[in-house]
């Protein structure tokens, strides 16, 4: 070791710079290769959406069509399927789920973190147990129950199974636990009731956790196919993924340009939201860390 160390001369500055350049080029080559793979369907979707049918599967791929056909594609997509209706459904379902999730989980999490009440340890164990159960597991009995109640094909049946998020309770509990007890005690002395302590005092400080959870929840339910597929058979109630599936299945599914335009419309809201609030999305995923 020692002999070789003394024999090898230190590399010249030029050699060092060369080596650095080569490794940099290598890193970017790998990353760009991966990026191409990542972007492939997006690019294909966007370009197909503005191409006439004849150009989509041409042997030479081009980013911009010879003949701009975007208007026609988007027009036929919007006229053949109620895409905007799907988006609205997605908004209603995700919004409804999120609002109830927050209204239910926040007080419960506060109680678990800060109040002494009988049954608290049991409830927390149940929450941990609930974390271990995939959302698909209870769907069969829920479906039977909803069928018996005759509420299949309603917004309620689409949202109801997700009203309780054990994950939200868990996340908020961890967050509230670190909230200083003194501030809560000061509020009690100032005459703030427990209900208002939650919503006026504690929640305003918990917005990072609430934002993180909201992103997690909306992304999950906007993209969920399994449950809407089960309870919804009425096209008018379809969420974006389900609508996309109907759309692709219909005879118009062979109009590739229109299909790509439809896919663009359905993908756009979340992707645009992500591009606008990139930091929050990434922080949200980092904080929740669960899919």
């Amino acid at each position, binding site marked *: 070791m020692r002999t070789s160390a003394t024999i090898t001369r230190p590399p010249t500055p030029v050699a060092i710079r060369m080596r650095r350049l080569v490794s940099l080029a290598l890193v970017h080559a790998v990353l760009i290769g991966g990026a191409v793979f990542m972007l492939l369907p997006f690019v294909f979707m966007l370009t197909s959406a503005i191409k006439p049918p004849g150009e989509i599967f041409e042997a030479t791929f081009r980013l911009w069509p010879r003949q701009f056909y975007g208007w026609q594609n988007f027009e036929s997509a919007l006229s053949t399927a109620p895409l905007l209706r799907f988006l609205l459904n997605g908004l209603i379902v995700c919004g409804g789920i999120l609002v109830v999730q927050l209204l239910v989980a926040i007080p419960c999490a506060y109680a678990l973190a800060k109040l*002494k009440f009988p049954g608290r340890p049991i409830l927390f164990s149940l929450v941990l147990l609930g974390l271990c159960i995939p959302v698909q597991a209870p769907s069969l009995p829920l479906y039977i129950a909803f069928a018996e109640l005759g509420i299949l094909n309603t917004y309620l049946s689409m949202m109801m199974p997700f009203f309780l998020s054990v994950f939200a309770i868990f996340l908020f509990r961890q967050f509230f636990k670190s909230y200083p007890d003194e501030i809560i005690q000061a509020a009690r002395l100032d005459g703030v009731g427990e209900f208002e302590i939650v919503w006026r005092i504690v929640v305003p400080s918990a917005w990072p956790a609430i934002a993180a959870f909201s992103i997690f929840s909306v992304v999950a339910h906007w993209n969920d196919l399994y449950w809407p597929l089960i309870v919804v058979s009425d096209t008018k109630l379809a969420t974006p993924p389900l609508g996309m599936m109907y759309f692709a299945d219909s005879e118009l599914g062979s109009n590739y340009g229109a299909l790509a335009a439809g896919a663009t419309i359905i993908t756009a809201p979340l992707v645009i939201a992500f591009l606008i609030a990139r930091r929050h999305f990434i922080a949200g995923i980092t904080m929740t860390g669960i*899919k």
Partner: protein
Amino acid sequence: MNTVAAQVTPLDAVPPAGGQRWVERFAGLGFAAPAFILLVLTNLAPLAALAFLSFTNYELGALDFSFVGFKNFGAALQDPVIRRSVTNTLLYVAIVVPGGVLLSLLVAILIHQRKRTRSLYEVIYFLPVTSTLIAMATMWQFLLHPTLGLINQALKGLGFAETAFLSEPRLVIPTLAAIGIWQLVGFNMVLFLAGLSAIPRDLYEAVDIDGASHPIDRFLKVTWPMLGPTTMFVTVTTFITAFKIFDTVTVMTRGGPGGASEVLLYAIYLEGFQYFHMSYAATLTLVFLAFTLVFSVLQTFILDRRVHY
């Protein structure tokens, strides 16, 4: 006056200074009640019903049913569709878990060192996570089209033979797995990036001074051991996600060709919600639960230690 009033009121029955204690109890119970009721209605009762159903021969709409013991479990063991589904799911998981974890680790490490281009790469790799998988699966279907698809045209251009990725039984699961990885990498990458940022810089300096300055040394001596908990968590989460493969199968292959892409959740969906064999589907759901249970318990355990502020 005061003392008389104090003696007369039934407050003596309550422990002294009960005020705050009782308020906490009532508030706690009140705050927890909606969550508890919903937890029972949407989680616990359905699970119990699931276990109950799996021992019956109930079918949706049937007026009566009887207990059949372990018959459903026996049938599931014999059922070639279920066997195939389990094998296919496991194969899918076996590709997605190592692929999704290692590739995202590689990407995270490479991106972490970039300064100006970091956020650009971050956005690109994260994009599939927020996109609607159904829409993108349709696009993949086009791209993978055996004759017209862009990928086959590229292969042809490079002198390879045309490949029917989605209709060749041996290739369909690996192809779906590749799409699964495509969707997952960004998510895992973000978790790894967070893990990488948490590694103290002076550890790298220390290892540099100790003479291990080659990138591979740095990785083996510092990055890998320090990322241990993150890697564990990412692996477990990826496992659970992979095990729940459903969307791409439903849209792209419907279990085909010839059952080569039948997976567990899809089989449950068909049995339960297409053929309405409720008791059988319940049995399959229990099998599904059993497969994920170890991992979801692990995930919960890690979450419990991970998420604190």
